[in-house]
């Protein structure tokens, strides 16, 4: 695409410093969001999707911290660490201050919708009061104009009797209605980007469908960009323009949605797709992904997916692939982090296949220990791809 991206994330790293060790929740992800796009961030729970989305607003809570990378929004620097003259990392002078983040970015430019509509609204204030407060704050409106705007938005997201519901408390709303309120809240602040963090996961399928239709409709009318965080490939298919697949803190595949589904280039994405029901397959063909995702505190050496990957070969335990462009579609790159592809050229074809399933035991004490030593060894030798 020719225009500059609305949001550009480069090599973003967010870590949690816990007593048991450093958790690399987000480990060097890069992606862009262009105007008017819905970009998916997909992966199993624990992949670092939510941490990544909170990092974009610089709202990672202690003991978590953004430790590296660049986040640029419309040319302003939300986050940037640069190397100082003494080799230390330091914050770039152009980086927005905390106060500027609060006053200029959060709500005003980038709004969020959280997963759990039950927990996202304050139980002791009226729904309308909460809406009005955020609108007032982010659009510099007077209290009465903000109230009118809040009621208008409630109507817009399909809440009947908005004048009356304005005065009601969250517990008087159903889950689906609350999620509509949160969508109204996000749109009412007129941001250019909305981060939706699994907003339909807590809802039943019918309501989920309604909400997705609503967002699709509103997105077109308001021309807002979305980052849609989800674990559900079905939702991705329905709503996203481009997709980033995350595994253990990394983006392993990035492509426009059709390419991702039909020209899948990463075994993990393939596994995710095979595990979900699709209209073009029968239920018998569903295969759940083997094993469970390891903890981000001690990721496997080499390619982090290798213990579960059906295509894993010996080289995968040694080489850590970063996402590289393997194809192009619609002017967007199709990136994948898998050494199978020729661009990596690390000798995948000559490498011996790993015994199928041998490494894919569910996690247990023993496996944990194995992983520990494997990871240690991996770091000591060729932990290719990325410099640490």
């Amino acid at each position, binding site marked *: 695409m020719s225009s500059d991206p609305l949001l550009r994330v480069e090599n973003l790293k967010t870590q949690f410093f816990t007593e048991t060790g450093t958790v690399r929740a987000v480990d060097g992800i890069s992606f862009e969001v262009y105007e008017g796009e819905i970009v998916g961030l997909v992966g199993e729970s624990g992949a670092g999707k939510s941490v990544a989305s909170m990092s974009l607003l610089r709202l990672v809570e202690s003991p978590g911290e953004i430790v590296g990378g660049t986040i640029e929004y419309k040319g302003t620097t939300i986050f940037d660490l640069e190397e100082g003259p003494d080799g230390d990392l330091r914050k770039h002078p152009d980086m927005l201050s905390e106060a500027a983040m609060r006053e200029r970015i959060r709500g005003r430019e980038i709004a969020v919708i959280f997963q759990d509509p039950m927990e996202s609204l304050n139980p002791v204030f009226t729904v309308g009061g909460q809406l009005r407060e955020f609108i007032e704050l982010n659009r510099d409106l007077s209290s009465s104009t903000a109230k009118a705007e809040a009621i208008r938005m409630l109507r817009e997201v399909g809440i009947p009797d908005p004048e009356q519901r304005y005065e009601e408390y969250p517990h008087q709303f159903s889950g689906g209605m609350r999620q509509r309120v949160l969508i109204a809240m996000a749109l009412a*602040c007129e941001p250019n980007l909305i981060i939706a963090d699994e907003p339909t996961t807590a809802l039943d399928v019918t309501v989920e469908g309604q909400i997705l239709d609503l967002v699709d409709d509103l997105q077109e009318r308001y021309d807002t960009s979305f980052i849609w965080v989800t674990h559900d490939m079905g939702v991705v298919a329905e709503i996203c323009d481009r997709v980033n697949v995350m595994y253990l803190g990394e983006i392993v595949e990035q492509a426009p949605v059709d390419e991702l589904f039909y020209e899948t280039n990463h075994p993990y994405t393939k596994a995710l797709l095979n595990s979900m029901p699709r209209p073009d397959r029968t239920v018998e063909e569903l295969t759940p992904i083997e094993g469970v995702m390891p903890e981000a505190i001690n990721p496997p050496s080499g390619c982090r997916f290798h213990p579960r990957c059906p295509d894993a070969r010996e080289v995968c335990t040694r080489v850590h692939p970063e996402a590289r462009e393997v194809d192009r579609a619609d002017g967007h790159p199709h990136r994948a982090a898998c050494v199978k592809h020729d661009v990596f050229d690390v000798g995948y074809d000559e490498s011996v296949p790993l015994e199928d399933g041998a490494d894919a035991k569910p996690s247990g004490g023993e496996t944990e220990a194995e992983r520990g030593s494997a990871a240690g060894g991996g770091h000591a030798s060729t932990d290719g791809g990325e410099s640490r």
Partner: protein
Amino acid sequence: MGLFRYTIFRLLQAIPVLIGISIITFALANLAPGDPVRLMLQGQEVDEELIRTIEARYGLDQPVHVRYWNYMTGLVQGDLGYSIHRRRPVADLMLERAGPTLLLVLSAYVFALATAIPLGVLAAKRRNKPADHVSRIVALVGVSTPSFWIGIMLIIVFAVQLGVLPSAGLVYPWQPPEAAGHSGYIEHWIESIRHLILPMIALGTLQMATLMRVERTQMIESLQQEYVTLARAYGVPERTILRKHAFRSAQLPIITIVGLNLSTALGGAVLIETVFAINGMGRLFIEAIQQLDYQLVMGITMVLGAIFVIGVVITDISYAYIDPRVTYGDRE
């Protein structure tokens, strides 16, 4: 059920509890050793005839269930009984002494709330930082130190050593200044406050410490709620989050603690009144016990029990008014 009906319903529910309290206090007073008439006439040579006359006069010759019935009908009409020892109605005796106790307890609560809430919020905000550690130590000391000891220490430091504050008695702000020998209201009220400071702190410290701990825990919990994160994500300043978004829901348990601790505070007042020589209900209670004045003991116990029960009911009701999620007992 509407809020109004809920209020009535809760008040009606308190009635059986109050009857229970009356039975227990009545039984205790009647089972206790010592015959009130002989005690009143102690040391005097009396004949059985006189004792029977006196007993008949106070209804003491009746069987116990009749006496209980008489006592209850009196209670309903606001008659708390008659102190044979002091030859005055119990209600009059208590009314005379209620003012100082109320003044003491109320001021202790004001002191406790005014210090505990800001300190608790601060501790939650600076969790695990020095300010938090200091406040936790203060709370721990406050909870574990007996109030009378705090009172004595305060007297030693501020009254005896420094000589800046009086150590005994209260000056009642509702009295005319002349009665206390003061020339004007300003002087009178200043003196009232000066007399109140030490007993107020002595009685209020325990409440302050308890409330501060609750406030801290509640604020920490509510600061971790998703709606607080949401408020941050919408650019709400941290100040507003502390004062509004996290604050409101954190205060509900505070109301409960205040209501439930009313009995502890009244119990503490008994000791503090003794330490600071305040002529309140607490001291009246102790005197009544020492003089084996059963009618008076019974009356005070009854009133304190009623205050406690009503305190709980008021707590429940105010909870229902403040927390929109509370449903009132039955179906929505």
